[in-house]
């Protein structure tokens, strides 16, 4: 086990998060907030302030003025900067309309604004930080990544990262064209209904391997056998077989059995 990851997550963190999430009173939060503020350093405090303004105008209607959550959105205390970066950079937040789950959309905020929002939310409680570029650079062990992917990911995202269905209209999104950073952040934070894979159970190197495998299979991997048919497996193969292959063969049969045109057409 990597000691680094153990240190980064204080053993009491989970309980702290629980207390926050359960807190319905602003008093509890107020009692705790100064401690948080003390941790924040000065250079970041400007970003936090800017982020707070953005938060109040764009997010607070659902997530509450103090990020305590409401019936329309979960509390954001302790979700960490990585969760904000993932949700806002992939355009999932801000949510346009309630549905089974937030779909991927073009992002609304600029990278600078996303940084400020992340800083503000991170200032509210301890949570996963945004990963650095070397953590998700796709140069890990692809073989190990493939094995881990089949054990932990393919059950929802499909063997080739094409995505899959969950209950009641929810779904695991396709992984094609997803930024490695976002793949990493999703594993780290468990957005929406996806379970998280924190460093304590899925160490950084393992996550890097998975990112490597996903990038290789969804972006670079050719289809040695020819047309990929969406890499959905037997469903698209069967459809192709029925419609195209059998269609061609029946077309040939029609040509073979048709009478040759006569010299004198009536």
């Amino acid at each position: 086990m990597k000691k680094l990851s153990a240190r980064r997550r204080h053993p009491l963190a989970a309980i702290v998060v629980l207390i926050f999430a359960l807190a319905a009173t602003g008093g509890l939060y107020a009692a705790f907030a100064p401690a948080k503020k003390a941790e924040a350093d000065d250079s970041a405090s400007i970003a936090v302030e800017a982020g707070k303004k953005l938060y109040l105008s764009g997010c607070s209607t659902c997530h509450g003025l103090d990020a305590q959550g409401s019936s329309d959105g979960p509390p954001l205390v302790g979700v960490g900067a990585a969760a904000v970066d993932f949700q806002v950079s992939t355009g999932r937040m801000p949510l346009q309309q309630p549905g089974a789950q937030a779909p991927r959309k073009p992002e609304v905020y600029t990278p600078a604004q996303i940084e400020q929002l992340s800083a503000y939310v991170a200032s509210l409680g301890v949570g996963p930080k945004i990963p650095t570029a070397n953590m998700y650079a796709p140069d890990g062990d692809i073989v190990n990544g493939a094995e881990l992917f089949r054990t932990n990911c393919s059950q929802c995202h499909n063997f080739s990262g094409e995505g899959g269905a969950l209950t009641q209209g929810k779904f695991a999104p396709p992984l094609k064209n997803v930024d490695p950073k976002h793949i990493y952040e999703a594993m780290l934070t468990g957005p929406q209904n996806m379970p998280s894979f924190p460093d304590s159970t899925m160490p950084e190197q393992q996550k890097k391997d998975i990112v490597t495998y996903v990038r290789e299979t969804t972006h670079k991997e050719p289809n040695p056998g020819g047309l990929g048919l969406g890499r959905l497996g037997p469903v698209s193969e069967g459809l192709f077989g029925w419609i195209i292959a059998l269609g061609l063969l029946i077309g040939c049969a029609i040509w073979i059995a048709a009478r040759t045109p006569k010299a004198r057409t009536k």
Partner: protein
Amino acid sequence: MSSQDKSEVPEEHLPEVPASAHVPAESDPFADPGLPAHEPRRTDIDEKAANRAERQVAFLFVISMLATIGFIWSYVGIDKDRIIDIFFFGKIGAQNAALGGTLGIALFCIGAGAIHWARTLMTDEEIVQERHEFTSDPETREYAIREFTQGASDSVIGRRPLIRRTMIGAMALVPLSGVVLLRDLGPMPGTKLRHTEWKPGKELINEATGLPIKPDDIVKGSLTMALPEGLVEKYGPAGQKEELSHGWLEKAGMSAILLVRLEPKDVKSKKELAWGHEGIVAYSKICTHVGCPIGLYEQQTHHLLCPCHQSTFDLADDGKVVFGPAARSLPQLKIHVNEAGNLAASQDFAEPVGASFWERG
């Protein structure tokens, strides 16, 4: 049609001939006018057209020959690992495409040539053939039955019951040997389906790291796949590979579990909390419907969905079925923390995991 009708078919075996067939056409507008006269095709009357058709057929056969040469060249001359990017197909294996494509063209052109030849240069004058009645005529029938009866009575099987009965007995017993021979196809089931590799005190090993799991590792909303010790390939602090014992696949197939941490207040069942540790619960990963591994965990609803037939289990309520064809709750593994501070099984599953079977009860 009746004009050529000379078959010796007894009338009773044929469908009723519509009355019209015996009526001259002027009185029956629906009578069968008979086979239309044959009309020649262009190639039957125009030598130029026929020569053109011949050249077309030959051209197809030549294309086929060239494609076969191309096939052989592709086999020898294209690197098997080469990938090419073709419009519409994307990045595909060059040699595979070349081999399949050339073979396809070589075969298709032989076929197309033969058919074009048949359609343009061979006769297209339809021939009429009579059908024969399948039912034998009475003489043949009587002859066959008589011969058989004679043969049977010559065998004296009817008059020698002892022979008859012992023969039937012997014939009936012989196949038993074949059935007995199949016995050693596999071991008796015994109680194997009732047990997994989990034993009291066996530590839970994280499949991703090969290391034991501490309660603090499992955070709310996370999902961890685990196996009993000795079934994960990487093991030990250095992460060195350990050779797995023989038959590990069968054991892994029955013993796979997943670990989640739930809010104690969200859990509907006291027993579930008692069998877990501070809200950490371990459930079998094997679906109770027909045994697919389940892993589609929705962390907000606590529902676990099986991708094979969509049985859905509520992990916050004793693993009860909330949708789909599975009939039984997902078995929970009772866990505790041992002296080393690691999660360990307190006992084997209290019930058989996976698909139902007759003796399960």
